């Protein structure tokens, strides 16, 4: 480590502590420089695009020459008769996703961790993250094949056991549960990867000590494994809160149909019809802006909560 004294100005009184610190950390700044450059160029520089939500943007006129309309686009969004329904659905899907999905990869990772034999563990680990690679189109089409009334496996089995057929696909009551199950099926396995990485850092000696004390498997998990990955769980949760508000548009778009639109229509699908397909750039951006804003509030809230409980948040 460099000696700060060799490069500091001769009069310590004149140099502030702050400057000293920056100087001492200059190599750290160098380390984060490429990344900062990236964010500046590719993330922040294009952010002027958000400005068009305050305009009536015409792409060929550019931002400079398109008329400014203040909050008109937002007003248009808020006064849309479907606004509250969209808001409710977006939040509902968001909460369902967070509440039902979040425990899955953790539980799965814990289960995998408890498996001693390497071969089985490796195989299951690999299998379980395969669905992540299948596109939503495939997931939805597999669902269709399984649940359709016209010869789907699930209904065939129900009938075989003497039950009534269930109209899964057309009954809006099943729309959200199917959506959540699809999300879990596809992503849970992939989510285990990070947790397994975190768990691998736990000192096995702790388990030995616990066993000496007579702790059973479940208690070991509860007292050793879980606390050790707690900060990862929280960070991932906050991150997920930040990204789920984005909902996989493709997923919802494929699931929506005339029967379930009332309960599945979210801002993303709304803006696809109302904005994107109609070439309404400003409106599309405004809706996205609003949605991101909500997401930001949620992230800030959860981050604040996390810090309040003594955890390190995401910022």
């Amino acid at each position: 480590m460099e000696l700060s004294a060799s490069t500091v100005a001769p009069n310590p009184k004149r140099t502030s502590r702050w400057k000293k610190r920056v100087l001492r950390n200059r190599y750290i700044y160098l380390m984060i420089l490429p990344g900062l450059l990236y964010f500046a160029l590719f993330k922040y520089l294009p952010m002027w695009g958000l400005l068009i939500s305050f305009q009536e943007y015409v792409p060929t006129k550019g931002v400079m020459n398109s008329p400014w309309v203040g909050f008109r686009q937002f007003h248009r969004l808020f006064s849309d008769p479907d606004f509250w329904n969209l808001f409710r659905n977006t939040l509902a899907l968001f909460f369902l996703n967070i509440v039902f999905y979040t425990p899955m990869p953790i539980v799965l990772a814990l289960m995998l961790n408890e498996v001693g034999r390497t071969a089985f563990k490796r195989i299951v680990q690999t299998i379980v993250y395969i669905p992540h690679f299948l596109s939503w189109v495939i997931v939805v089409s597999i669902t269709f094949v399984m649940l359709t009334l016209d010869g789907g496996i699930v209904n065939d089995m129900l009938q075989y056991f003497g039950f009534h057929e269930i109209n899964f696909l057309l009954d809006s009551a099943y729309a959200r549960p199917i959506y959540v199950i699809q999300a879990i099926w596809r992503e849970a396995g992939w989510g285990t990867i990070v947790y397994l990485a975190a768990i691998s850092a736990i000192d096995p000696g702790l388990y030995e000590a616990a066993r000496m004390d007579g702790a059973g498997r479940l208690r070991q998990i509860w007292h050793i494994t879980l606390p050790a990955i707690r900060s990862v769980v929280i960070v991932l949760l906050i991150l997920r809160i930040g990204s789920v508000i984005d909902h996989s548009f493709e997923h919802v778009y494929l699931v929506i149909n005339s029967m379930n639109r009332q309960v599945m229509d979210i801002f993303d699908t709304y803006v696809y019809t109302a904005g994107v397909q109609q070439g309404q750039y400003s409106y599309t951006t405004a809706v996205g802006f609003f949605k991101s804003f909500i997401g930001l509030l949620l992230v800030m809230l959860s981050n604040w909560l996390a810090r309040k409980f003594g955890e390190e948040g995401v910022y």
Partner: protein
Amino acid sequence: MVQDKTLGSRLFDIINYTLLTIVSLIVFLPFLHVVMGSFATAEEIARKPFILIPEHFSLNAYRYILSTNAIFRALGVSVGITVVGTFISMFVTSMMAYGLTRRDLDGRKTINFLVVFTMLFSGGLIPSFLVVMNLGMIDTYWSMIIPTAVSAFNLVIMRSFFANLPEGIEESARIDGCSDFGTFFKIVLPLSTAVLATISLFYAVQYWNSYQNAILYVNDANKWPLQVLLRQVVLVASGFSADTTHDFVQPPEQTVKMAVIVVATVPILLVYPFLQKYFAKGALVGSVKG
């Protein structure tokens, strides 16, 4: 690892194994159907909704896909982008992640917030396109790497892992005269193989799946990665083009669609098992004494 032999522990194991097996089946069967379907004949696919073992084994779907010359070039492009991209991304991300763990770094909280902010807000397609265009990256391979070089998500995860390393380690490194870079390369990285392997996988998958960048920024068909080609095969078939096709354009068979999925995903699927050895247990044992 010494196995517990108590009854409770055995019971736990049995239930655990059973549940995991069930989960694996639920997850694997549809994929197996896709893989097996790609080796079946088109007629069989149409007849049976689920195929576990095809009656007539057929390589037609693969012959169809591999008959295009473009696929080998596209494969090369994808591999190239994935390898180079992952390396660059890991380099930049890990350095920045480590740098951000230093508590006395001025501006750290702000930078962290700014990073997370980008996960929620984006300027949109056209402004990004303009940046790339003004940097002269249009129609280059770089346009499929640089614009997505750092993922805020991955950065935050890495930072969290680095921050969780025992404090004592860095202190002793400093006492021994290690510089910042030295601490990073000699101490932190070797101890973080698990997260490095994980994030490498994440980036590799990101680059392997890259599609939108290619379409937007690359006009030269010779530079297109695998996913573009494969999506063409699938999309052409699934009737998404409202303008119904001409009389002698045959949509590819279902089997071809399945083969496309196999070709698109199996290569990257194979990466994980190789990375699993980096999830070595107890890598930290013995490194911090007292």
